């Protein structure tokens, strides 16, 4: 430490500005700054440059058009299909901390599905579902047209054991376009 020989050490000042000096040296620089306007100016320039760069970078980030990274990522992951190596992966709304999310975290969405969208379902449903939760990937609540029969359908998460036949999709439906797809369920949000 040659504080006496070269007090206005530019590199040391930069390290001071970057908070990279040990406590002792830091104090020495602070003491020096109190007396040296040249170094104070140099430090102010460093600080100004930093603010400037941050402002410019923030500006670039804020400017439109900006992509919807969240949605794009989720879509990309879903379209990926096969899970990455090692861990079985799925979009299971699983339970995990914090506890407040427990009940909500496992829900997907409730959809009342009418296979004939034009017709009005006038029959009372055979069952009124109050709540559901599960370690499952999607849940659908359907009601048949003629008798108002309620159907609750859930899709299992694929297990790496023998039970899986590789078929993770919803039960084969008559009219796929009317069938609430997993993507739509996600976008509706949580109950």
């Amino acid at each position, binding site marked *: 430490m040659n504080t006496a020989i070269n007090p206005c050490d530019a590199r040391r000042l930069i390290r001071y500005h970057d908070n990279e000096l040990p406590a002792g040296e830091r104090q020495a620089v602070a003491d020096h700054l109190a007396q040296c306007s040249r170094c104070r100016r140099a430090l102010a320039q460093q600080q100004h440059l930093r603010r400037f760069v941050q402002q410019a970078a923030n500006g670039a980030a804020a400017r439109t058009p900006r992509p919807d990274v969240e949605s794009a990522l989720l879509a990309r992951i879903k379209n990926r299909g096969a899970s990455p190596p090692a861990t079985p992966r799925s979009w299971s709304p699983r339970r995990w901390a914090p506890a407040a999310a427990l009940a909500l975290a496992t829900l997907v969405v409730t959809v009342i599905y009418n*296979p004939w969208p034009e017709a009005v379902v006038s029959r009372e449903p055979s069952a009124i579902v109050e709540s559901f939760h*599960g*370690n499952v990937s999607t849940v659908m609540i359907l009601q048949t047209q003629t*008798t108002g029969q*309620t*159907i609750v359908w*859930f899709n*299992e998460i694929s297990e790496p054991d023998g*039970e899986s036949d590789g078929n993770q999709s919803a039960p084969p*439906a008559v009219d796929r376009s009317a069938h609430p797809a997993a993507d739509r369920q996600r976008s509706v949000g949580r109950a």
Partner: protein
Amino acid sequence: MLILLLTGSGAWAGPKVKINIKTVLASQSKKGVDGQLRAMTQELNSVFKYSSYQLLSKDRMVLNLNQTGRAKLPGNRALTITPTRILGNRVELKLAIFQKKRQQFATVFQLLNHGSMIVGGPRHNKGHLLFNISGDY
């Protein structure tokens, strides 16, 4: 009688809820519908496109309110059902499906007296299991 049912509480035994559970294997790889399932499958055909429905087992239980009945299901599975209260012409039921002793799915619903609800569908033998739950009290 109706008033008693509505206010049913601890001391008196309360209504008995009769529950029937039909475990059905729905699949696309087979053909044919079990005779006992015709009415049910007719409804299901409006929603699903399975080519075969096979009745695997039937469970029948008579439960008091807050009494839990249990049914063993294929593939290391089990189902528990608990009537909790009577609400007008419906009975509130708690249902849970377990796989390998771990709870997989649970739901609470109000079943119409003499009505039925279908819950499905864990994968099994290249098809899906569904459970027709009917009840009356």
